[in-house]
């Protein structure tokens, strides 16, 4: 069984275990519904968007919402709704890939720091150093130096984020590594790597899942922020943040350009925040959901 399968099994397990509790959480279901909806939009973008997002129609610039163009048109006469739909592809893909990288690095650093005492001091100091920079600073710095291409953006988003996951994974590892079942496995001759991946790491999946959903929303905001500053995924590829900043000079004339893109980001992040905070409440009813995000 590879790691991916273990993770999906674990997710399923968590869900079955808390099935009844989840049914009482309408917000969680709403959040999931929005998220699924967004994913479907991104996947089926070519089929559902009413126009080609790159087709310019200079006769129809700055149209207000109408039947032909449900959200109006921008300064080049491009359909905003189509641009938003296509924009979800780029934003989602970059966010999901960078979050995955972040989670993997964080899990590995955390579990190795917690499990091997020799590595602990060194790895945790590196984590401290990473936490000393606001994440947007590292991201912008890297993009500034290496230029705004998609791989650079993905890595620039992934590099500052893992420290939080590492901290959580490390503390979970420390708390389970001397439990009976781990010692039994060791006595039966299991190697370190087997113990780490089979017995220790699965303990942290639930909590990491929750930080990751909240993190996904954060990544979407960062991507949009980069695009907004003109340092994100470069035009003509449509991207939410870029659409927002392009609409800025026409805020009085055609507010729909900026507002609709902003609303899309908001809805997506709202969904991830709802899911994340509700998962936390299910896992640990005492703590307050969003505080530690």
């Amino acid at each position, binding site marked *: 069984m590879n790691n991916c399968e273990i993770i999906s099994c674990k997710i399923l397990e968590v869900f079955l275990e808390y099935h009844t509790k989840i049914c009482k959480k309408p917000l969680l279901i709403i959040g999931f519904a929005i998220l699924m909806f967004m994913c479907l939009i991104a996947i089926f973008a070519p089929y559902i968007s009413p126009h080609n997002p790159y087709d310019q129609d200079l006769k129809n610039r700055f149209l207000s919402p109408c039947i032909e163009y449900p959200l109006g048109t921008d300064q080049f006469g491009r359909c905003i709704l189509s641009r938003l739909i296509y924009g979800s592809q780029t934003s989602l893909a970059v966010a999901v890939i960078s979050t995955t990288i972040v989670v993997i690095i964080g899990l590995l650093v955390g579990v190795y720091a917690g499990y091997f005492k020799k590595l602990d001091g060194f790895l945790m*100091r*590196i984590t*401290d*150093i990473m936490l*000393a*920079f*606001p994440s*947007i*600073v*590292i991201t*912008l*710095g890297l*993009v*500034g*130096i290496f*230029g705004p291409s998609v791989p650079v953006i993905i890595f620039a988003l992934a590099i500052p984020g893992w420290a939080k996951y590492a901290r959580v994974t490390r503390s979970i590892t420390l708390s389970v590594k001397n439990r009976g079942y781990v010692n039994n496995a060791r006595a039966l001759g299991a190697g370190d790597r087997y113990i780490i991946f089979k017995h220790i790491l699965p303990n942290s999946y639930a909590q990491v899942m929750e930080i990751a959903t909240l993190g996904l*929303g954060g990544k979407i*905001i960062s991507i*949009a*922020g980069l695009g*907004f*500053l*003109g*340092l994100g995924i470069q035009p003509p590829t449509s991207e939410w943040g870029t659409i*927002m900043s392009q609409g*800025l000079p026409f*805020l*009085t004339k055609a*507010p729909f350009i*900026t*507002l609709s893109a*902003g609303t899309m*980001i*908001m809805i997506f*992040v*709202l969904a991830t*925040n*709802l899911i994340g*905070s509700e998962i936390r409440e299910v896992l640990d009813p005492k*703590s*307050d*959901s*969003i*505080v530690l*995000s």
Partner: protein
Amino acid sequence: MRPYILVRLLQTIPVLIGISFIVFALLYFSPGDPAVINLRAIMNTEQPPPEAVDAMRLEMNLDKPWYIQYGSWLTRVASGDLGYSYQSRRSTYEEICRSFPVTFLLSTITMIISCIIAIPLGILSGVHQNSLIDHLSRTLSIIGLSIPDFFIGILGIMLFSIHLNWFPVAGYNGVKYLILPAMALAVGMCAISMRLMRTSIAEVLEEDYIKTAVAKGLSKTLVIKRHAIKNAIIPVITYMGTQYGWLFGGAVIIESLFALPGLGRLFVESASTRDIMVLQGCVLVFALVFLFINLGIDILHYILDPRVGQGNE
């Protein structure tokens, strides 16, 4: 008291070294020759003569292995020499000194606004749990967390600057220009600190000494005012303190949106034009500010609540 502060100070040293390595690495791995960049600014020509470049490379130790380069870079930084801007041809130090006050003011105003809003609301919803105000503040905080700050800024511009004409749209000419950006930044911070205040006060209200005070016959408001808030506010202050340090670098997008001549905009401009000397200078300043504010907050936390030192090492 002393040992904890000493340990905390010592812990800062490896982080400082790490920060210096990262900032140096930014410069080291960047395309472009630092000697040429500096000479352009000093000699004020687009193409500095090759002999001068060679001399400058020798002077900056750019021909030596990386650890010697690091050493000479560190001595230069320690004396305030962060190189020259590729764009404006002024020194990075000068540029940073010019924009620091704006960012400092912006962060401070943001902090003040969020304290005024978040703390009372958090106390109210913590004391009256599951009441209308609690549900309202919870909903507001989740929504507030979900809106990117620059979108709030845009909405603010539309409402307060364009429609109501209360605040200027952008630019900087006095504190009035900072209110709207500060409000945009405060929303996200309020959302979290309010929840934190709520949880914290709800926890404190369960403590025995509060029950004793109530049993003694003190009124509930008096108990909350005199006993509960004092203890409950400590984690909120700690959190807000770290956020204060974060704001210096976290306000980059808002500063660009409102065209404020602060550190954030300097940083974004240097990133878009690959003005590497200014970029690394900004990264260094952001990290140092964040680090030292955190250090200060930890020490303050210890003074307010000496229990923190006991579990630590």
